[in-house]
């Protein structure tokens, strides 16, 4: 059932006129509206401190915008029980080392929490679900290892496996490529791409506009004034706009050998 999300219904997260400001008065979201669907990748770009993570946390229902509403499949997310939200939205946090040491399987099986009663524990079927997600991520060999003793890249995969065990429509990832070496960054992006093909909606924040180009789908750019611009990568990601966003000259070009558009910084002035 989860193996291919395409069979299931299309899910949708919509934002309507969201406002959010920090206590000190800096505006993070300024009349932000959007509509993201399952089966899409949305890369959230923006400079440091623009509030990408805050925006993602709003989508994850971790914090509430001051004004405006977020609709999950047409219903106000704040009025949906947390358990129901968790069946639709999985969250992959930035890599953390948990305080206590759990085995990878014990960690992944917590993804079944939305399907378990408050006083119950995972049963064989839930361990099977967890194993299915572990297999989907191709990390069977980590199964009995301890979560704190595996590498950062492996932890990222384990976290994604746990989100898959939630069997959600959307998977939210907070900077999934941070703290990873280049090879592992590309590996995560490939995984994200294949999740889209299976019908999941993936919404991620990233510091690298080139990653958004690699993923070749939707892009949402959050600027310093709290405005959000969302659309296809090719429409949104323009050389001039990107240079302005990051306040540094950037080049955007099609590379024959890579057969894709590339965003990179030019040679420094001497």
């Amino acid at each position, binding site marked *: 059932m989860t193996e291919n999300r395409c069979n299931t219904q299309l899910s949708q997260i919509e934002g309507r006129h969201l406002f959010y400001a920090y206590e000190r008065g800096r505006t993070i979201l300024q009349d932000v509206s959007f509509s993201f669907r399952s089966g899409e990748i949305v890369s959230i770009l923006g400079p440091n401190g623009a509030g990408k993570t805050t925006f993602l*946390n709003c989508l*994850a*229902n*971790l914090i509430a915008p001051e004004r405006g509403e977020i609709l999950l499949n047409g219903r106000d997310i704040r009025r949906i*029980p*947390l*358990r*129901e*939200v*968790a*069946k639709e*939205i*999985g*969250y992959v*946090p930035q890599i*953390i080392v*948990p*305080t*206590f*040491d*759990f*085995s990878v399987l*014990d960690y992944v099986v*917590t*993804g079944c*929490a*939305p399907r*378990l009663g*408050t*006083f*119950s*524990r*995972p049963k064989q079927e839930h361990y099977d679900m967890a194993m299915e997600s572990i297999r989907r991520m191709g990390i069977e060999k980590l199964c*009995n290892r301890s979560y704190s003793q595996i590498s950062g890249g492996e932890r990222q995969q384990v976290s994604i496996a746990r989100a898959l065990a*939630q069997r959600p429509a959307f998977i939210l990832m907070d900077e999934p490529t941070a703290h990873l070496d280049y090879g592992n960054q590309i590996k995560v992006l490939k995984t994200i791409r294949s999740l889209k093909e299976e019908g999941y909606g993936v919404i991620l924040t990233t510091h690298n506009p080139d990653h958004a180009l690699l993923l070749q789908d939707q892009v949402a750019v959050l600027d310093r004034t709290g405005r959000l611009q969302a659309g296809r990568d090719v429409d949104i990601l323009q050389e001039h706009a990107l240079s302005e966003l990051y306040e540094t000259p950037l080049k955007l070009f099609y590379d024959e050998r890579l057969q894709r558009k590339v965003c990179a910084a030019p040679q420094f002035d001497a």
Partner: protein
Amino acid sequence: MTSLRSYRLVMLALVVALVITSIIALCIGRYSINPLDAFGAILSRMQGSTDNAAMENVIFVLRIPRILGAIIIGACLSLSGAVYQSVFKNPLVSPDILGVSSGATVGAAGAILLGASIFGRQLCAFVVGLVSVLLATAIPKLLKNGSNLMLVLSGIIIGGLMDALLGVLKFIAEEDTELSSIVYWQMGSIQAVKMDTLLYMLPIFLVCATLLVLLSWRLNILSFGESEAKTLGVNLKWLRGSAIIASSLMTASAVCVSGSIGWIGLIIPHLGRLVVGSDNTKMIPCAMLMGGLFLLVIDTVARNITSLEVPLSILTGLIGAPLYAWLLWKQKARVM
């Protein structure tokens, strides 16, 4: 799964050790009893006859309540320690470090001064204990510093405040009667445990322990942190609230009976994690058995080592402090 088998083995070993230690504790003491005689006395009591009144008195009025008391109090303190550590995702906290024990001590001492019944003592101990843990967790929030160290420091602040309040209570207590009973009880002793004290404790212990064992898998999720728990659909307020209330209630009821006995709530969960891992569904039952066994051993030693009873806190400290140091070394703990 091998881990499940080794867990069952550990639990079995603990139960066997608990039974053997209980039999030893039943038989040794100033009035020593042959195990076979003790067994005979228990059998004849069940049949309703009395052979040896003096021995029966020792067995049923003194030792059995004391053994049960030690096991229950040890289990209470270890269980609440384990739960606090998960709830605050902090392996450095325990009922004593969070100030719950000191708070409960102040509450109970206040109730002694007011001449309250044992029920009143329980209630006061629980209320002040709960207030202490809430204050201890409020300070890091006020300072917007969620680090493990901050919570420990704030527990020290609250604990210090409660100790000062206890000093005030002692100062105003009547020297001959109230003061001595507060001081003696505060040092930690299970000597005074009678069947009726157990009857007060037992329901609280059973209800809270059952609740916490049932919630133990969710406590795993809580130990990942707030955002992860919320995105997994966990009702944070409810879960944290009931876990904190249940463990504070248990700590308070243990403190009412035995005074504050340090170290158990801190080291036993660490020991449990070392043996069966961090999964609370296994660690919590294991820590309860370990805590019961540990306090039973300590209490049996305390009443046999010299002609005078040694206060329990002295022994738990003497054993607990080096043990904790060893555990920290063993876990190569990275304390942040």
